[in-house]
């Protein structure tokens, strides 16, 4: 973008590659969005526009899908995603106290990202590890049988 040659931004090229892979596939929109979000870390408007062109789907429809599903994000996200489970099993085993402590340690509330982009905090309704309730997930790691005092050490592991 910053230079004058016609080279595309590498992110855009990566999106093009995804679009090429799914060209002509029925029901491709959601997998395309998922893979493109992996490229950017979130779903910027220009990316939706590029997908709209590539798949020949109106931008409004893409926006509708993006805002329907909890997995898509319109704003940049932290390097580490903390998912606090507030499902039934975690709820009755004190999930709210864990959530409270995570908010205190990170200084952000549900759905927010820390200023240094280190953490994004989300509450979720069940990650299916109810046998170990209460649990949180940081990125793809599940941490179970928690007490509020275990939270600072767990979060410190994620830079």
């Amino acid at each position, binding site marked *: 973008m910053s230079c004058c040659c016609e080279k595309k931004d590498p992110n855009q090229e990566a999106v093009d590659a995804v679009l090429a892979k799914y060209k002509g596939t029925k029901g491709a*929109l*959601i997998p395309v969005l*998922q893979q493109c979000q992996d490229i950017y870390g979130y779903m910027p408007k220009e990316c939706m526009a590029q997908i709209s062109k590539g798949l020949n789907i109106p931008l409004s429809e893409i926006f509708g*899908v993006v805002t329907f*599903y909890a997995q898509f994000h319109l704003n940049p996200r932290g390097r580490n995603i903390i998912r606090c489970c507030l499902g039934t099993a975690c709820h009755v085993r004190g999930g709210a106290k864990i959530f409270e402590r995570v908010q205190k340690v990170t200084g952000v509330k549900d759905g927010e990202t820390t200023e240094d982009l280190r953490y994004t905090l989300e509450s979720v309704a*069940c990650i*299916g590890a109810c046998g170990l309730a209460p649990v949180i997930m940081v990125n793809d790691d599940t941490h179970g049988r928690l007490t509020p005092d275990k939270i600072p050490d767990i979060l410190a592991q994620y830079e």
Partner: protein
Amino acid sequence: MNSLAEKRKTYQDQLAAKAKKTVIVVGLGTCGIAAGGEKIWSAIKGEINNKKLDIEMVYSGCVGMCYKEPIIEVHKPGMPRVIYGDVNPENALQILQDHAVNGKVVNDLAVAQDPKEGAAKLPDVPVLNELPFYKKQVKTAIAKCGVINPDSIEEYIAFGGYEALEKVLTGMSQVEVIDEVKKSGLRGRGGGGFSTGLKWEFANKAQGDKKYVVCNADEGDPGAFMDRSVLEGDPHAVLEGMAICGYSIGADEGYIYCRAEYPLAIKRLETAIARGEEAGLLGKNILGTGFNFKLKIKAGAGAFVCGEETALINSIEGKRGMPRVRPPFPAQSGLWAKPTNNNNVETYANIPNIIRQGSSWFASMGTEKSKGSKVFALTGKVNRTGLAEVPVGITIREIIFEIAGGIQDNKKFKAVQIGGPSGGCIPEEHLDTPVDYDSLIALGAMMGSGGLVVMDETTCMVDVARFFLNFTKNESCGKCTPCREGTKRMLEILETICAGKGKPEDITTLERLSTVIKSTALCGLGQTAPNPVLATLKYFRSEYEDHIFNKKCPAGVCNALLEYKIDAEKCKGCGSCKKVCPVEAISGEKKQPHEIDTSKCIKCGSCIEKCKLDAIIRG
């Protein structure tokens, strides 16, 4: 190419040869990993490599004993298989050295032994099938979870895998397969409880050049994780069940819609599909019979409503996951307007066993109208959390007090929530009800996917109802007004009650709203959303009344209704509560009983956590 039977023989021989070696199995399902299974794996692996030990390591899915995770097993020739629980990297090395190398069982950590022929029974270790957790269980749908390596199609085949598919493709007509499933009495395990055989018959009879098989692996009910466990522990069983369904309805393509929160399940499914295609058991010209069946995985994008079958179909098509108006039903017009059969994971996982062992075997378990076995997820305040597969018709009491070992910390049982946000709670007086589809509906609950969340006396039932309504309100897709607006209004009322501002007419308003939403919402999500409120009102009405009229929360949960007091007799005046109080509401002289100024108190609970003498009372 060798026939499937020859392959099976080869793989069984390979397994038998393996049994002559010492093998350590580490449980690496999501719960095993969360409890630290991978650290144990690397600790043992490192030691084996360092000392150049002749010991093989394998991993498996979940055996269902979440309460003992992380779990490892040691198979040593001439000794029974021993299961160890609460393992950590240090004691894992002890198990390795003492048991796997020296043949001396570590009794303190051994949970159970599984006796086998030619091996002397261990004197001090309980037998697996005699454990209270296992005694009443029947392992069929999840029999291979935690036993086989989920990434090995060879092990699946050695355990009789794909035999049912072969039987169907080489000797049964479509109608014969459907009849067999109908005769078994299998009903949908995802919640609705509709006859699986009938569903297949509708899809079979529907006209269409193209048909689809869909597997609902969008297990969204909080408190249910049996489908995840099956996908992670025995993925081929689901694929085989889907292929059999494909044959019987005339479909050559299938989709598995798996929620994105289950990355490990998706990974294991991908591996399983690839192995199945390589082995000629999926894909083109299966087993040389000319039957084609291509399977694809669709990862969900985070929407509970996609567990509803028409919303799920919309989501596979790349649209917003909103339910469709029915009719037409998916069996007539489903995915891309083609006839589609949709069942959930556990339902498909039951199919191979039904075909192999016969419908009468399956129908011999269960009650008159609900046959077979069902997997339940035991969670909440019980001593033994985990997955248990039991014959349908066992009582709730047996599940909670025998299998799950009763309530934690000797507290009193209050209620059990069955069926997630669509279900209801069941109180003490109905604990002897058999769990089957119809009895549970009669009580105002439902089988749902089979999540049992147990609550004790410290759980507030109004708070539980509020919790579920908050969930359904958030997950309502917004398409129909009764659900979109109704759940929101109900939640608002419940929130005011929990905040101590409930009005006398609130209960009747809740009941009226519930009736309207139940009868007018478009899909299952809305139609069942009021159930948790109705069930708590039915069985725990006095708790609502305490909140509204007496401004008290009997369970001590609803913060706004609590008051903190210091018991002057117990308080020794140490001052630790005074120091921790963020709003300086506590006063008192050193070594004299302290007091809390309730007008300043913000009920944060910090003082209770600090007090070592239990002198602070919340109520």
